[in-house]
């Protein structure tokens, strides 16, 4: 079975900028991959190479086993959906007209247009000019555009930037629906929280190189990041200052009668058992290491490595 996307030793340099260096990455069929990294890490460049908009300096791109810049690219693009970062449209056309135009270009029947407008929740504004649309509405229209023709591969570049929580939730809901239907999806993001439960795997990019990739679980254990346990006591009681449990790496008291403990993942259950026996315990919350901390970990590792930025 061929992968949906295969990137081998992919580099892309332009005018002295090494946008991407020796990237190896694959997207399996029906897989959802989160492409993470700061601005300028190479996420958008990777997507443009997959779309065939940019030519690689060296290395190989294969989408459904084909070259996206090869002779079969027209056929290939029928099966791709792309939502660019900061999507923009023809301001003087209505949402429906814009979507109809793109549908014709992709040879999608016009009735799809109405279905998609309803799906992204734009049916009430379909006849208004795009000029009057809010950022969220433009993003919804962009998503509808990317979904034209039920693509087998969807590339979403920062789909939730600038969206309010409701709109963000809608975007992720759509992603989950597509994922259930077996669409291969690549989502880039620098907003780390929120993306976790919607992706199968993440790839962390920094300075045009792949820093780490794998499931979030695997990355967590690879980074050996500790988790945070927050315990709150009743106001009248006191926790012992020290010696709660030998496995606790750090304990910081906070103002609202709680204590923030840092514990290695493997010691979690033992420490929790001990904590639950504390007198006057009111609440316990466990916070697994977020992608934010993961990212910081791998990024620091890169910076300490130093050479790859040369």
């Amino acid at each position: 079975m061929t992968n949906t996307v295969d990137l081998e030793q992919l580099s892309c340099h332009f005018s002295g900028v090494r946008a991407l260096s020796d990237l190896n990455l694959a997207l399996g069929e029906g897989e959802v991959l989160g492409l993470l990294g700061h601005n300028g890490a190479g996420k958008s460049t990777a997507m443009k190479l997959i779309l065939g908009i940019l030519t690689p300096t060296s290395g190989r791109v294969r989408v459904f086993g084909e070259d996206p810049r090869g002779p079969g690219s027209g056929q290939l693009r029928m099966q791709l959906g792309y939502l660019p970062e900061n999507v923009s449209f023809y301001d003087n056309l209505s949402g429906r007209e814009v979507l109809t135009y793109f549908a014709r270009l992709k040879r999608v029947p016009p009735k799809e247009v109405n279905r998609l407008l309803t799906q992204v929740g734009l049916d009430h504004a379909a006849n208004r000019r795009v000029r009057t649309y809010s950022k969220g509405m433009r993003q919804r229209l962009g998503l509808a555009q990317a979904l034209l023709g039920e693509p087998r591969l969807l590339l979403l570049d920062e789909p939730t930037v600038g969206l309010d929580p409701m709109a963000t939730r809608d975007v992720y809901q759509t992603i989950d629906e597509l994922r259930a239907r077996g669409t291969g999806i690549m989502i880039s993001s620098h907003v780390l929280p929120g993306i976790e439960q919607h992706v199968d795997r993440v790839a962390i990019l920094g300075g045009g190189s792949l820093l780490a990739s794998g499931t979030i679980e695997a990355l967590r254990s690879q980074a050996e990041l500790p988790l945070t346990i927050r315990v709150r006591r009743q106001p009248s009681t006191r926790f012992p200052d020290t010696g709660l449990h030998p496995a606790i790496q750090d304990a910081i008291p906070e103002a609202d009668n709680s204590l923030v403990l840092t514990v290695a993942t493997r010691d979690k259950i033992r420490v929790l058992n001990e904590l639950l026996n504390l007198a006057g315990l009111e609440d316990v919350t466990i916070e697994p290491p977020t992608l934010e901390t993961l990212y910081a970990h791998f990024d620091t590792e890169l910076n300490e490595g130093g050479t790859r930025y040369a």
Partner: protein
Amino acid sequence: MHESLVVAGKEFRDGLRNRWVLAITLVFAMLAIALAWFGAAVSGEVGFTRVSTTIASLASLAVFLIPLIALMLAYDSIVGEDENGTLLLLMTYPLSRTGLLAGKFMGHAAIMGLSTLLGFAIAGLVIVVFDAEATLAALVSPFSLFIGSAILLGWSFLALSYLISAIAHEKARAAGMALFVWFLFVLVYDLTLLGILVGTEGQVNESLFQVLLMINPTDIFRLINLTGFEQVAQASGMLAIATSESHSVAGLIALLGLWIIAPLAIAAAVFRRRRT
């Protein structure tokens, strides 16, 4: 081809919607009627003048206006989509760069062609209806040639504006380049030729001069419309020199056609290499 037609259709509808078609049609119609009516004012009378005089004055004005309108219409055709961000999106669709360029050009060419045809045809009808001496039969042939060559002139400057649009990386720069091209072809070129002619006291190789005139689409357009009428040719100054050698109208029209195809082909080549 399907995709190019979709793009052409959108471009044409945009032209209808933002009133380009209407505006150009009205400008041409009013210009032609006014020239036909006041054309004889220099000789002390007001009223419709001879068809040949009308066409001569129309041609001299069209040479200024048509290139300007064509350049304004399409100077941002590619760089505008690029700045707007829609070019990036279009490039991910099953549409080649040449296909996009061809489609947009066809749409703009339809806008330009339709409004030129409508504008001058309306003017022609008005002249036939209100001028007792003009007959449809006498008017049809020279007016058809004039309208046809005017459309070709418009398309050749559209093609030039596509070239500008493919080269420029900013809309503002494209506007500047369009203005420069207009100045060069419409004003500077002829003045320079005239200067050379006067400076050398007419000692210029005549065939060289013929060639120099062909390097400018506006001069080809003038030749097509002025050579047909002897009395006009005599009155049109510099071009009288060129007309001493007979030009075949078909050959001139083919040359104008070349002025459409060549810039478009270069524009397509530039566009293919452009980094979006």
